[in-house]
């Protein structure tokens, strides 16, 4: 018995020293900046770290559907609302929650928009066990930075300098038409949501409530990733949780996606043309909430104008066309209506 107690004590001591060691070496591996060079993965999503404190009013969370569909610079251009896309490829809810926590450290978003593609996406317990401790022991996430190790860095505190011009949006100019067959075919069935996903969704909602943010669920158009079963489940979830839900795959939102030219990869993601439509719709919705300010003429937001200039120049160079603002587009449409009518 004495031996067992002694060995148990040894085991506990060994584990505690190990945890302390891992915690200590974590410091060496934490990225010292949020540039692409320092932050190998998802650096655009982490661009918010360099944004001025409390300057972002809307946070978009989600997987690649977000960074291909929502252009915060265009929303700024239309309404002066500042937003950011913390979206990463194949993002899962555990990672979304981490972004949310990190975002609240320096920002106070009034609205958090959660793209629903990831809500129903399965993630394994393996993922959870691997990634959950990363928050406390960053070496587990950033261990691969040994490839960039330098002694100078060890004594340097992190300083974030990279501001993403597009605020997390990815500009895609390719066109690859989608096959719409079976897209949003009517059914009463509901897609499955795991208990784990449900738990995380609740945690995201609680976090938003604690910080006074309004949580909104958004389904961006995608023939490959979205269907009626998923819509039905998300609709039910939104009702249960008492939060707004916008499904831009449904006809009532009249986003008018042209699947022959608004997608970059056969309906999986939208390209710039599709993103313009979604962005204008979500921008209009956000503006209609009446809780978000127009920062266009405020001091400290000059870099947003630079971003808009870059967007205009990229549209011109990559698409060989002029940038059309939401307002101009609307005016053009308004003119077309009586003529056509």
């Amino acid at each position: 018995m004495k031996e067992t107690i002694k060995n148990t004590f040894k085991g506990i001591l060994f584990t505690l020293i190990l945890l302390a060691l891992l915690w200590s070496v974590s410091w060496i591996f934490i990225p010292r900046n949020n540039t692409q060079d320092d932050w190998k993965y998802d650096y655009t999503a982490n661009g918010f770290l360099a944004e001025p404190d409390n300057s972002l009013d809307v946070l978009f969370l989600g997987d690649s559907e977000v960074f291909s569909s929502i252009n915060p610079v265009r929303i700024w251009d239309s309404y002066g609302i500042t937003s950011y896309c913390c979206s990463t490829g194949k993002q899962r809810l555990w990672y979304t929650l981490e972004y949310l926590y990190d975002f609240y450290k320096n920002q106070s978003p009034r609205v958090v928009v959660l793209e629903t593609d990831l809500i129903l996406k399965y993630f394994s317990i393996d993922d959870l066990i691997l990634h959950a401790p990363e928050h406390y022991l960053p070496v587990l996430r950033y261990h691969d930075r040994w490839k960039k190790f330098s002694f100078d860095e060890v004594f340097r505190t992190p300083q974030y300098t990279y501001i993403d011009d597009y605020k997390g949006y990815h500009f895609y100019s390719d066109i690859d038409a989608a096959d719409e067959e079976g897209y949003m075919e009517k059914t009463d069935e509901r897609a499955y949501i795991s208990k784990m996903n449900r738990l995380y969704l609740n945690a995201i909602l609680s976090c938003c409530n604690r910080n006074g943010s309004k949580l909104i669920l958004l389904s961006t158009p995608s023939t490959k990733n979205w269907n009626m079963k998923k819509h039905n489940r998300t609709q039910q979830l939104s009702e249960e949780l008492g939060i707004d839900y916008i499904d831009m795959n449904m006809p009532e939102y009249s986003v008018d996606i042209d699947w022959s030219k608004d997608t970059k990869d056969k309906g999986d993601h939208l390209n710039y043309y599709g993103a313009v439509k979604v962005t204008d719709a979500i921008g209009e919705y956000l503006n209609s909430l009446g809780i978000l300010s127009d920062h266009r003429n405020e001091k400290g937001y000059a870099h947003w104008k630079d971003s808009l200039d870059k967007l205009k120049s990229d549209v011109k160079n990559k698409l060989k066309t002029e940038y059309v603002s939401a307002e101009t587009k609307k005016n053009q449409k308004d003119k077309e209506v009586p003529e056509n009518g």
Partner: protein
Amino acid sequence: MDLSFLLAGAGKTMTSFFSMTYLFVFLPVCLIVYAITPKKAKKYVLLAESLLFFWLVSGVLVAYLLLSAVSIMCLGLLIGKLQEKQRAAVKELPKEEKKAVKQEFIKKQRAVVFLGVLIHIGLLLVLKYSGFFLGNINTLLAAFNCPVEMYVPSFAMPIGISFFSLQALSYIVDVYHGLVKPDKNFARLLLFLSFFPQIVEGPICRYGQTASQLWEVGSIKYRNLTFGLQRILYGMMKKLVIADRLDPLVKKVFDEPNSFDGGVIILAAVCYTVQLYMDFSGSMDAVLGTAEIFGIRLPENFERPFFSRSVSEFWKRWHITLGAWFKDYIFFPVTSAKRMKNLTSSARKKLGNHFGPLVAGGIALFCVWICNGLWHGAGWNFIFFGMYHFVLILSGNIITPASKKVLQKLHINASGLGYRVFQIIRTTILVIIGELFFRANGVGSGMELFGRIFTDLSFRSFDEFLLPRLGVDIFDLSICGVTLLIVFAVSIINEKGVCIRETLAKRNIVFRWCVLYMLILFIVVFGAYSFGYIPVDPMYAQF
């Protein structure tokens, strides 16, 4: 309530013994439950944990395991009954009649063994090979413009069927040979088949080796716990730091056989051989380490194979338990068959004492290697892999006298270090060529890759763009190199008969813990996991 998980199993990622769920949930919970269970009930807990593990990774397919256990128990008891009857029947008989009666009973026992083979090999043939065979028949029919096309079925296969089927068969044959007594205890037999650390990737154990050990398990001892965990850590280093890090490079080259020149193909073939060894032997370290925690000694599957001086020796050091199984249950039965014995004696007269036995031995060797190839997978490249080794081993046996003479004439000392190193390098090259075909996506692709080594042997691709194209960088290759040196050093020490864990255990606690912390930190920092890496399934689990 959705109960589909009951059919599907709820822990498919646990097929890897380095998966987080296995290492940090399943194994610790199993050990705690096992530790707090009274001694008498420990074996039942171990069985329950094993079945739970199998259900988690295979779901409802656990039924195959149960079917296998039930069948070998019944057949084993039947053989035992026949043996008892045989003993009773021949007891009173005169000597001349004994033989005939004995033969009669042996015939019956053989029929029972045949039934066991039919159940297990038949099941394997249907589940694993029917698609391959029927697909080939369809190709053949199409080649002769035959309008008939056979339906090619596809079955869900339980994890580890290739492993536990061989264990089950060995039990029946061992009972038949009187090496083990037929077991009346179904739980013991089931535990022998299903012991959770070994069910996914082996080793392929014999009933005599593990059944009683498993049934007489005791408390977890501190020494076993630390030794077992140390071995798991060492295996984890092999798998995470080397095998998984090389995966993108190997995948890229083998999936695009036309895109690279001979130099890159050689690099990929070497990397794949290293990857396979580190993956499989690393997993074996985890298996044997886990078993060691419970105080169970499973047979080793690797004995430093890359120190082998011939291909034949290589296969005595690589996947030892599979090689031993084929030797005991295919090679020996074939060579000891009456017709083969006759063939050997007549061949000996005509061809001499060296070449004579090689005729029957060659036939048996052919059977072994066709089975070995097919065991690894239903594909022509696996058959080619088997035949490649058959030819190498047989020709090695044939040329032995001639090579001895050549060595004598050239005054080369066969036991000298220089010649030994030459043999080791030669064997390694031959093994790497075999592994190239083993990994290739079909024989055609293997031929294409192998051909390019000769027709397009240049190193023009080795520029600054090559490594990014292969999904790795110079740091990846460097850390693999450093870790391989560690494995090499450990292998040399083990080859000399020194057990590093024993040596470490004799040192003071500070030194011991420092070594362990260094190993853990090494894995944590240099392992290929988390962001930027896709988890790689254990390579032998798919066989």
